[in-house]
């Protein structure tokens, strides 16, 4: 067993953390750990030296000074502990992101106490560099903190174990607690940077998904606007001397695209295909057209709007992954 493994096992045993925990996670007194910080140790050594000097030179005030500073240091242990105890943590939002941009996990911290919690820092236990700025929690309030974790692969990204830490008030004592909210973030494949343009099919080839919307369903009249095509002006009404009106047709001007795995060049690898499809979905969504997605074993009929975009990108993100959705 390597040292790192041993350390990990030791930490699991010591901090009693298994996998993700159900919300809300309450930081009871047994979950809070308190140790002097490096500065606290330095102060300890200083105080020891001061104590020895006081004994050696029989400095009564030296004793008093040493003990006073020691007393304050000790008090700060309790302050640090009190700063964390009885906080509750629940998972917050974690909106899907494209691979490469950081996954942002919202963490909700509830302070039910009638006192403020000061100088807290939250970070993934294994990646302390991703720490939040120090933040405070006002009495009886809930605040959201965001942990941004870099993404490298598509699919589900589970929120790693987090550390909530405080060195309040004097920086002498580090109090912390470890927990893992049950939270994950969907990572879409990164859209290809230089993808070929969106394959816009025309209606004659649009196939199975084309049912439901005729192109020429008359839908009503509306006020004429100068840009309207002359073909759609209600000329009969105009001829009668009425106002200019424009005929509206359901589905007028709509185009659609089928984004098909099989249509992609044969030499393209799986991730490259997903990446290109992701790019096309983003482009298609931006231009407002209807688009459908065909993957081996998956077909999403042409549609538009945020939920559809999400459904398509989700299909890409989880392509080839065992279906966890039912398991979760």
């Amino acid at each position, binding site marked *: 067993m390597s040292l790192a493994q041993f350390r990990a096992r030791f930490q699991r045993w010591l901090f009693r953390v298994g996998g993700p925990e159900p919300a809300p996670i309450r930081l009871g007194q047994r979950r809070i750990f308190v140790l002097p910080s490096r500065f606290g140790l330095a102060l300890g050594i200083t105080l020891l030296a001061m104590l020895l000097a006081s004994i050696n030179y029989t400095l009564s005030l030296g004793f008093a000074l040493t003990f006073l500073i020691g007393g304050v240091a000790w008090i700060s242990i309790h302050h640090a502990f009190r700063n964390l105890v009885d906080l509750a943590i629940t998972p917050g*939002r*974690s909106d899907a992101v494209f691979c490469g941009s950081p996954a942002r996990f919202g963490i909700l911290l509830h302070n039910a106490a009638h006192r403020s919690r000061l100088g807290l820092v939250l970070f993934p236990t294994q990646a302390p560099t991703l720490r939040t700025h120090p933040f405070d929690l006002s009495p009886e309030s809930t605040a959201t903190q965001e942990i941004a974790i870099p993404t490298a692969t598509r699919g589900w990204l589970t929120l790693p174990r987090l550390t909530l830490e405080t060195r309040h008030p004097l920086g002498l004592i580090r109090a912390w607690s470890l927990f893992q909210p049950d939270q994950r973030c*969907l990572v879409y494949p990164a859209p290809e940077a230089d993808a070929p343009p969106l394959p816009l099919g025309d209606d004659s080839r649009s196939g199975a998904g084309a049912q439901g919307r005729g192109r020429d369903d008359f839908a009503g009249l509306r006020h004429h606007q100068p840009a309207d095509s002359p073909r759609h002006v209600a000329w009969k009404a105009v001829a009668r001397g009425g106002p200019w009106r424009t005929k509206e047709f359901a589905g007028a001007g709509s185009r659609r695209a089928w984004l098909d795995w099989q249509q992609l060049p044969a030499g393209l690898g799986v991730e490259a295909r997903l990446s290109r499809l992701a790019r096309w979905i983003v482009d298609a969504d931006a231009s407002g057209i209807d688009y459908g997605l065909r993957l081996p074993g998956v077909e999403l009929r042409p549609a538009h709007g945020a939920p559809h975009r999400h459904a398509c990108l989700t299909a890409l993100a989880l392509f080839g992954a065992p279906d966890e959705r039912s398991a*979760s």
Partner: protein
Amino acid sequence: MPIHIARRLTEVASRIILGKERAVRLALACVLARGHLLIEDIPGVGKTTLAHVLARLLGLQFQRIQFTSDMLPADIVGVSVFDQREGAFRFHPGPVFAQLVLADEINRATPKAQSALLEAMEERQVSAEGTTWPLPEPFFVIATQNPSDQIGTFPLPESQLDRFLMRLSLGYPDRAAERALLAGEDRREMLARLPAELQPGELDALFAATRAVHVGPRLLDYVQNLLAASRDGANFALGLSPRAGLALLAAARAWALLHGRDHVQPEDVQAVLPAVAGHRLRAAEEMPLPPDRLVRRLIEAVALPG
């Protein structure tokens, strides 16, 4: 006494719609809060009857619009017809010009037709030919919708759902209620015999009483906490809008009035929350939950002092 009137209304409605007391109360609360109601259920569980009962009880002028796929906006709001004699367009008001409009099976119509009704609901007026025609006062829409997984329908888009104060499902009656229904009188006949419970001025008094229900600072705190939890919580992809917050308060006031209180309690908010927030919240993709469980999560996420 508005409180007594409110109570009697519930009793009478429950006599006709059996075993659905909670839904009836919510529907009444929706009306008292001056909001539109969306009833979502399979056909034949009494959606139409409920709308009828409400109209009769409240003494409102009633109009039913059966939505179909070939329906045009003009079929709802009315048409302007060129009058040869006067040499001008004349507006023929559509069926939407009624105090209580039952929009039956709204998801059968095209989005075009749907949005005509929804615009009228929002504006409380109809624009045609450059002229605006105010809708009657009060104006309520009770729309019914079949669950969207039925083929050949156009479910209302999310942005439009927000215009309904509440969404209700009636569900099947329980065994005893169904027995009473089967054994009892024909509901249609009962409905026909039902006298209007309210005198013309009384509905306005009820509205005023609803508005006057006290909302204290603690309750506002609670409502704000609910809104915040819906926006930050992991379970929700889409949080509640400020409009949803207003709707929640209005519905809670009506609910409190129906329960004989002069102030709103957290329980009132919790009682109306599934109906008010169920169709406005969207579950996060990470944790798909049905609407009722989603609302439950929201309620349980916000602690009350104690």
